[in-house]
């Protein structure tokens, strides 16, 4: 396990409202190696963002609790870390970029200032203004911003969406983190710009030798970027495997359904396969298979207790009692 940069064991994050308990992330287990790109895919409300936010303590402590589990990073358990400890890690060792760059950037500071802010927050010595400026310009050049000497004085609104997201990436990378969490980093961008930003993340990952957690609802992006993938549904990981396993040999009915539901560019299908029903939100802890109501293979056993993971191959497992059975292929 020593080469694992982060290890999550049995993580449970629940939201509390006046009357309900929402098990947003339930029994999440995964680990990540240095330089790996881990994808988390799922539809809205499946808990993918909750998992990512739990890792860096970006959760609202008023109504959200990490119920159980450990997040081991550099010998500390982030699930139980103090706010002070988390502050030291966030933006420094683990950084995060978000979906909408315009909302994430401050409208009243120049982008250069916002990059500097992170560096100052995490440096101990006195800042050399001139050197700092050079570092920022260098960083902006790395994320592909043309003429950074001029852009450093710009405000967020003066930049286009793609450029804003590049600034967000520059902010995230300012302290050379070990892990970059990218939560739907290109959902707000156009496809041609999306391709540019994803390529940038891929190149920077190698250059900075980071690990990346990429959260997306787009299976195409995940297929192109990730080494390993977690598929989430209703707060749990339903399937975990290498990119190849997930796309070429999916063993959970949900993963299979999702892959068949997306219109393909290669072949024409008269009718798309569609998963019946709607994406559920659970408002109490669950003890059945969460996909049972929409699953074509569901039987009584699925409704009795939540299925355990079934191992399919090295590093490939699915939370379905039929995962290793032939019936799925029918």
């Amino acid at each position: 396990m020593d080469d694992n940069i982060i290890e999550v064991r049995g993580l449970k994050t629940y939201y509390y409202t006046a009357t309900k308990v929402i098990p947003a992330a339930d029994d999440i287990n995964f680990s990540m190696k240095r330089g790996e790109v881990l994808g988390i895919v799922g539809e809205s409300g499946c808990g993918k963002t909750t998992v990512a936010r739990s890792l860096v303590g970006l959760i609202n402590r008023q109504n959200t609790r990490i119920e159980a589990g450990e997040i081991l990073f550099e010998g500390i358990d982030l699930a139980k870390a103090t706010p002070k400890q988390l502050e030291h890690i966030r933006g420094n060792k683990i950084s995060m970029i978000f979906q909408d760059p315009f909302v994430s950037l401050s409208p009243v500071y120049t982008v250069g200032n916002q990059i500097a802010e992170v560096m100052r927050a995490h440096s101990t010595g006195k800042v050399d203004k001139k050197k700092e400026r050079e570092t920022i310009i260098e960083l902006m050049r790395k994320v592909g911003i043309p003429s950074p000497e001029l852009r450093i004085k710009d405000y967020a609104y003066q930049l286009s969406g793609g450029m804003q997201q590049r600034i967000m990436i520059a902010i995230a990378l300012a302290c050379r983190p070990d892990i970059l969490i990218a939560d739907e980093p290109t959902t707000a961008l156009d496809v041609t710009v999306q391709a540019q930003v994803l390529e940038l993340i891929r190149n920077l990952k190698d250059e900075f030798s980071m690990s990346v957690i990429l959260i997306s609802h787009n299976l195409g992006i995940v297929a192109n970027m990730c080494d390993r993938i977690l598929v989430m549904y209703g707060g749990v990981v339903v399937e975990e495997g290498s990119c190849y396993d997930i796309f070429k040999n999916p063993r959970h009915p949900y993963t299979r359904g999702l892959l068949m539901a997306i219109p393909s560019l290669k072949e024409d299908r008269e009718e798309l396969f569609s998963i019946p029903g709607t994406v559920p939100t659970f408002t109490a802890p669950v003890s059945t298979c969460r996909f049972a109501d929409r699953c074509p293979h569901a039987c009584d056993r699925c409704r009795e207790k939540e299925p355990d993971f079934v191992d399919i191959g090295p590093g490939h497992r699915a939370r379905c009692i039929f995962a290793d059975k032939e019936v799925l292929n029918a």
Partner: protein
Amino acid sequence: MPEKEILIEAKNIKKHFPVKRGMFERGEKKTVKAIDGVDLVLYKGETLGVIGESGCGKSTLARVIMHLIPATEGEVFFKGKPVDKTNIMDFRRKVQMVFQDPYSSLDPRMSVKRIIEEPLRVHMKGLSKEEKDKIVRPVVEKVGIEFDVLDKYPHEFSGGQRQRIGIARALVTTPEVLICDEPVSALDMSIQAQVLNIFRELQKELGLSYLFISHDMSVIKHVSDRIAVMYLGKIVELADKQELFDNTLHPYTKALMNSIPIPDPTVPSMKAELTGEPPSPINPPSGCSFHERCPFATERCKTETPVLCDRGNGHLVACHLKEETKC
């Protein structure tokens, strides 16, 4: 080509929005050329897909055709007759619209039944309750909603169901054309497939024609018979689906296709072929509006605006580089 009945014809549509001048700004008044000369024909029974990036004017085009906003220039014909004040009600009855966001396009204070019946109150005044029910019931059942739940309010439905309600509302006046503005982009993947299937079934059953707007190439490919690619207020390429994919002519269309991530790890896809982002329609580049991002741009592209012309088989493209054949 066999003669097909033309339902909607848009001729040289332009829509320019004036830009508000700041207090100290001087000089010429600026305009956003959201649509700058678009010609479009929609045949009976077909689906015409319109694809483009944000800001290319595809939604404005839908709204102008619907006469929700007045065009700056140009005319829309429905079955050969120009649409004007005298026949706009008739036009809107035959041409209905489905919107992108099923959360904001349904009035939260109306019951779903009232929402779906609303077009009837406008277009077929004086129907009794029973008569309305008789029209509404088969329509909602067609889109997969039970008639008994119609007394509920929109917030009680999920995103996919709300989009079905939006479709049902569009269908009650028995239209011939549906203009769909990004109807599935707010939906989850598993729900998107359900809604796309509904569109297909309705077309088969009712012989509808669709003008289907989306930014998602895989969705557009799935639903369309013909595809129009828009860039900065203009159509840059228009062809039959198969022809467009087999014989892509415009460099922008090519780049658009190559930047789509394909959900298959064994297929190398998604190349960032283009640099930069779509320019602002306030100050579009001279000549071909794509020349700043085009890897093949020549001097001519910087000064001369290419026109959309036929390269055979109804394959239209606006690019100087493809002008070896006569235009």
